[in-house]
């Protein structure tokens, strides 16, 4: 279902392109040996290069280049064997060199794509325009002193990948799915931790609107520095509505850069096109063109992990999971691995239900993470084995699971300790049935005169009498026989 905004003059659609800044996972910065770790003392991870001292020169960090190539390959994108670093010139207190080293005309990665899995099971392909490497700036802090600003250069020079999508998204939901999927791919690749709270993934959204049916691209506004999926979606919705209101009132949209105020839920102008910086890009003469060895690219390609799309397809094919279940399970590599450990040699559908059902719920209620799960994959698998070999019923298994979360014990141990092994002894079940039927002669005759629904009542009574331990299938069978007598 296409996402449409109803205006007074008709229906409108949104055109969205996203620019994501993803911090590269690397020990040291893009052009210096200083460390990149987050959260340390201000200005404790700054080299003379990062601080823009006289005579200091950048030297490219090979690890960052490999990470960019790895990401490009993960986005099924063209790798440009020759790319060029350019200087983006502007003055700001947290930009020590007075320019940011970035890539302009020749980025390291060209056209690629991301497939979005929509909640309704459909999928959409969003084009990637380019990915380029660039330095991050430092951080300005304006709230530490009444009249001064403080600068922290720890982040200055850290490698970022700017990943630019084509204007292929049509709803806030798709934009959210794009960010989620991109984050998932980056985390699979190990090239960015995707942590939006710490700022290691930041997003700018380019938004315009057009009447439904039109193919024109109208003037866009860029909303800067959106640091969560929710804020991004709010900002897009607000911005689209703002455009529509202006168009419908006969106005025009001015191209500009805007900021999102998450408190008020609105965007506001940051600078107009006229105030836009002239960055005076030119090739950085301190750096030679970056020329990649094709063999290096192939080595990286060969070392790529199975990515979410492939894993999802395999889960659907090999485990007969629904695309939706598979999509949920592959979003995080560690979740997919957990699932596969549980499912190995067992009923996959059942494994998927346990992982996405009780296990995910337990993650939430226990406040723990998949990295440190309340129930190990081996134990969850063991629980499923106990159901499969009729040691316990599915219903008892739910109780056992709760105890596993509480105690961390293995399921078999809990079943033994609590005496939860199900009753498969025919005579014991027969005795319980005889007892129930004897106590409820009127119900028996009602059943026999055609009130079929009462069968469930008898089953419930037998289960209750056996504290739920009777094998439900056997109860069914034996009960049917008795009632037919």
């Amino acid at each position, binding site marked *: 279902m296409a996402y449409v905004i109803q205006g007074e003059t008709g229906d409108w659609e949104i055109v969205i392109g996203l620019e994501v800044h993803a911090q590269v996972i690397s020990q040291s910065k893009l052009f210096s040996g200083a460390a990149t770790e987050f959260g340390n003392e201000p200005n404790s991870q700054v080299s003379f290069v990062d*601080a823009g001292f*006289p*005579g200091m020169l950048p030297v490219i960090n090979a690890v960052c280049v490999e990470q960019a190539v790895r990401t490009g390959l993960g986005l099924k994108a063209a790798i440009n064997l020759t790319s060029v670093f350019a200087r983006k010139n502007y*003055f700001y207190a947290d930009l020590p*060199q007075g320019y940011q080293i970035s890539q302009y005309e020749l980025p390291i990665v060209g056209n690629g794509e991301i497939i979005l899995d929509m909640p309704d099971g459909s999928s959409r392909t969003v084009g990637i325009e380019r990915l380029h490497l660039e330095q991050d700036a430092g951080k300005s802090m304006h709230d530490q002193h009444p009249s001064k600003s403080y*600068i922290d250069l720890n982040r200055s020079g850290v490698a970022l990948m700017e990943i630019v999508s084509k204007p292929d998204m049509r709803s806030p939901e798709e934009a959210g799915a794009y960010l989620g999927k991109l984050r998932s791919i980056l985390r699979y690749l190990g090239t960015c931790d995707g942590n939006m709270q710490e700022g290691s993934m930041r997003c700018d959204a380019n938004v315009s609107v057009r009447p439904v049916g039109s193919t024109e691209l109208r003037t866009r506004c860029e909303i800067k520095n959106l640091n969560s999926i929710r804020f991004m979606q709010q900002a897009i919705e607000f911005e689209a509505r703002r455009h529509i209101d202006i168009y419908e009132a006969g106005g025009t949209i001015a191209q500009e850069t805007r900021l999102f105020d998450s408190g008020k839920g609105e965007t506001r102008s940051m600078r107009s096109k006229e105030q836009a910086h002239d960055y*005076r890009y*030119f090739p950085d*003469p301190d750096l030679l063109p970056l020329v990649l060895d094709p063999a290096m690219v192939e080595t990286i390609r060969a070392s790529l992990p199975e990515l979410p799309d492939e894993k999802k397809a395999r889960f659907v094919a090999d485990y007969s999971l629904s695309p939706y279940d598979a999509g949920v399970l592959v979003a995080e590599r560690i979740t997919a691995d957990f699932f596969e450990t549980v499912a190995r040699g067992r009923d996959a559908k059942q494994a998927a239900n346990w992982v996405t059902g009780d296990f995910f719920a337990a993650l939430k209620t226990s406040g723990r993470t998949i990295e440190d799960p309340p129930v190990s994959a081996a134990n969850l698998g063991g629980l499923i084995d106990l159901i499969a070999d009729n040691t316990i019923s599915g219903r008892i298994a739910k109780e056992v699971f709760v105890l596993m979360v509480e105690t961390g014990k293995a399921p078999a141990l809990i079943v033994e300790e609590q005496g939860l092994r199900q009753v498969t002894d025919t005579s014991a079940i027969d005795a319980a049935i005889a007892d129930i039927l004897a106590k409820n002669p009127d119900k028996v005759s009602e059943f026999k005169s055609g009130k079929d629904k009462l069968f469930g009542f008898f089953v419930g009574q037998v289960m209750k009498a056996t504290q739920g331990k009777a094998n439900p299938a056997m109860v069914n069978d034996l009960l049917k026989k008795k009632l037919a007598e």
Partner: protein
Amino acid sequence: MTKLTHLTIAEARDGLAKGAFTAVELASAHVDAMARARGLNAYITETPELALEQAKQSDLRIQAGTGGALEGIPLAIKDLFCTEGVRTTAASHILDGFTPPYESTVSGKLKAAGAVCLGKTNLDEFAMGSSNLTSYHGAVVNPWQRTGSDAKLVPGGSSGGSAAAVAGRIALGATGTDTGGSIRQPAALCGIVGIKPTYGRCSRWGIVAFASSLDQAGPMTRTVRDAAIMLESMCGHDAKDSTSAPMPVPNFEAALTGDIRGLKVGIPKEYRPDGMSDEINAVWDQGIEWLKAAGATPVEISLPHTKYALPTYYIIAPAEASSNLARYDGVRFGLRVPGKTLDELYAKTRAAGFGAEVRRRILIGTYVLSAGYYDAYYDKARRVRTLIARDFENAFKTVDVILTPTAPSPAFAPGEKGDDPVAMYLEDVFTVPTSLAGLPGLSLPAGLNAQGLPLGLQLIGRPFDEATVLRVAEVMEQAADFKALPSGLEG
């Protein structure tokens, strides 16, 4: 015995090795001479205590037999090289109070070879100039004067302080940097030898950047042999400079065989522009004769894009400079003039900190990189630069080395070039093409003009073929037998 300050580096090296004098005696002689020659204003910062301390250490190493290639040799360092613990100014007000906590690769290599640092020499502000008149620390005086005149002349630039110190016998050698002629032109105007090696030969790490794609360090000395000795210690691949060439360092001194028989020497016809003075033409012709006499063959060549070199250079160099100098913003080091806003702090600091020539080039550079002008200026200049480099490539298919004048005129007095900056830019007309092509270029003194001022000739070589340039230069040096001393020499 020759005065210690009048020795060549080779002679001083041999004297130290033989124990004829000590490094401390050699350093002291220079420290004394520096004090007497302050009128030249060749040094921005003198480091006599450091020099004597280093000389003491050198003497110990010489005695122990562990001395380096330049052990105990007193040198001057252009104040564009960052020197650990010694203030570095780039001759600009904006670097007030800046003492680098690191040592440039080139000065560090000289130190490691045992050289003694006499001080930091004056230069045009940020190496922008051909006269040393743009220094915040005052003009440098050329030790040479016209016969019968006591008018003060400029030493050329931007390495004017280094050239004046070497010519004025207050350093045995000095480092220079050359972006468009800043080693070769002052060498010519001060009657000394200066070589700008191939771009990438010397590391740029720790040298205050002017125009990154052009800047190269090189030695300034009184003989070709000294230049060979010094260059060998200065150059070599440096992983800290991505544009540094991963090339082995040849034994340049061993290249001075004196034999240039059979070499073909290119004489570019475009280097005789209309109106060039007869004395420059004459010294050039003389140089050709010396080469012929030594068994080399002059070959007329054409470098057709020569006339575009100067305008190309004055787009590319300011463009890079406008970006390289953005870091001087008053925020982290150097001069800060407070302002009510960040923009005001920038404006006030940079207005007060940069001199007129530097501001002019920042403006030119900012303009040529601006949206709408980039293609017409910067990008076109880049393409012309390629054509200029191709001219040389073609020429070097038939010749081994190229001979040209170094500068269109001898030393001049401040103000003689008028107020027109373009007249000053013309000083680099013969040196700039080599810089744009990244080729090695050497200037050596070829004789005196009628007024008693030195004139220089330039030898240009193939990429990384400094050895041939030095070999030819030494043969010419023998023929020129340039023994004149600057008329303004102290004591």
